[in-house]
């Protein structure tokens, strides 16, 4: 003490100390005699106050030690410990003068249990999300097949954004990409991610979104295990792909999102490969041609049956139709039926474009159009065939 009280000197009532003096002195003795130290014990009577400060006791079989962990220190932790949990704490022993209490001001707290506080916080948040149905597999939306607008919520400077841009450019270059930059770790990251996610709903005609970051330590990825961030992911109005860390990392965001691969696989999940789409188009083209030839064959068969019942006069015209039709069937690879015209066939159609295929459609004097290889010819039925 500054005025140099002798600890054992005040033997008479006249020399009595004030309460303040003795607690101040006790504090000084304690703080100088016991520096910051690690203590091991069991958490008991845990309480988190409105202020965010944590109050609890550490116990072992013989004693207990009151502890406080201030908000500025505990906010680095994923979540609070629970009563009965075995922990290591690092703190400064002190005396709280206003209460006359011996306390440990805790700066760091580690759980000795498997997974520790991280696992505990994860399970707690997961249970809360589950309770609200956010982990229901039925909530998962299919990703669009041919997206036109993709948004990426991630760090502007990370490798993830560059990977995603490169992959989508290669696979599906018609995409409009919207990067919504956000802090992904450290102080304020949770808020930043939630704000960025909220912007997704404001991008017009957005098809799909990717939220995530590249690999990192458990602490680095922790923002994506925040219940708040997970709820923000669940609230995104378009399908969301959560892409956080490596394959072995599973975050709450992954559980809530519609799809959860690694960042490099996210771009592939979000887009088709244009080569595959081109191949699909090729198949559709082949089916289209086959479909038509199929149709033509049936019509041809019908014509054949009709042929038997018609006079010879009809045969020329029908024959011509039949040739047109079989030519169509033979041109599976040619994607236009008009290609057959190049081989010398022609197609008779009326002014509306209907194919004329029955004698009855050619009354003498009837004008029609004859489609040949290089254009159309106006023609007229002479009636000579009968």
């Amino acid at each position, binding site marked *: 003490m500054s005025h140099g009280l002798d600890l054992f000197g005040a033997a008479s009532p006249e020399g009595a100390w004030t309460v303040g003096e003795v607690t101040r002195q006790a504090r000084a003795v304690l703080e100088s005699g016991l520096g910051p130290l690690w203590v091991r014990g069991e958490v008991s009577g845990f309480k988190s106050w409105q202020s965010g400060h944590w109050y609890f006791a550490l116990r072992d079989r013989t004693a207990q030690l009151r502890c406080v962990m201030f908000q500025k220190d505990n906010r680095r932790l994923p979540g609070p410990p629970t009563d009965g949990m075995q922990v290591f704490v690092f703190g400064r022993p002190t005396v709280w003068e206003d209460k006359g209490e011996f306390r440990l001001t805790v700066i760091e707290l580690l759980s000795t249990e498997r997974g520790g506080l991280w696992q505990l916080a994860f399970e707690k948040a997961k249970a809360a999300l589950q309770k609200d149905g956010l982990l229901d597999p039925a909530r998962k939306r299919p990703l*669009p*097949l*041919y*997206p*036109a*607008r993709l*948004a990426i919520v991630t760090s*502007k*400077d990370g490798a993830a*954004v*560059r990977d995603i*841009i490169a992959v*989508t*450019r290669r696979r*599906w*270059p*018609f*995409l*409009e*990409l*919207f*990067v*919504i*930059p956000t802090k992904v770790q450290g102080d304020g990251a949770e808020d930043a991610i939630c*704000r960025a996610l909220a*912007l997704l709903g*404001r*991008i017009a*005609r957005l*098809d799909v979104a990717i939220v995530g970051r590249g690999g990192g330590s458990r602490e680095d990825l922790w923002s994506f295990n925040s219940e708040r961030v997970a709820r923000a992911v669940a609230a995104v109005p378009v399908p969301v792909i959560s892409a956080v860390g490596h394959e072995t990392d599973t975050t709450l965001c992954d559980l809530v999102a519609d799809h959860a691969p690694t960042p490099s696989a996210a771009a592939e999940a979000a887009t088709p490969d*244009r080569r595959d*789409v*081109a191949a*699909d*188009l090729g198949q*559709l*083209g082949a*089916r*289209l041609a*086959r*479909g*038509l030839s*199929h*149709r*033509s064959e*049936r*019509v041809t068969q019908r014509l054949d049956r009709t042929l038997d019942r018609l006079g010879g006069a009809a045969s020329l015209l029908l024959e011509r139709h039949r040739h047109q*039709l079989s030519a169509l069937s033979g041109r599976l690879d040619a*994607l*236009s*039926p008009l290609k057959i015209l190049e081989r010398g066939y022609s197609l008779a159609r009326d002014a509306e*474009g*209907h*194919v004329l*295929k029955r004698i009855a459609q050619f009354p003498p004097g009837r004008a029609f159009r004859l489609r040949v290889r290089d254009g159309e010819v106006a023609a007229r039925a002479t009636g000579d065939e009968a």
Partner: protein
Amino acid sequence: MTPEQTSFARQLERLEEIVRRLEAEDLDLDDALKLFEEGVERLRQARERLTVAEAKVKQVLSEHAGKLRVEDFDG
């Protein structure tokens, strides 16, 4: 979706439908030809789409007034 790409998805849907009808329905030659011609045109347009240039990358920022600002992404 942007109009172009909406129509890409629709284009393919319609194309599928045309093929299915050609394959399954007992169509009149007129109708079959018309469907076929439409199919060929849609196929051509869809193929053309697959040759478009590079993806556009933009950056979305929120301004103080809550307005969105979109600018080119240079990252």
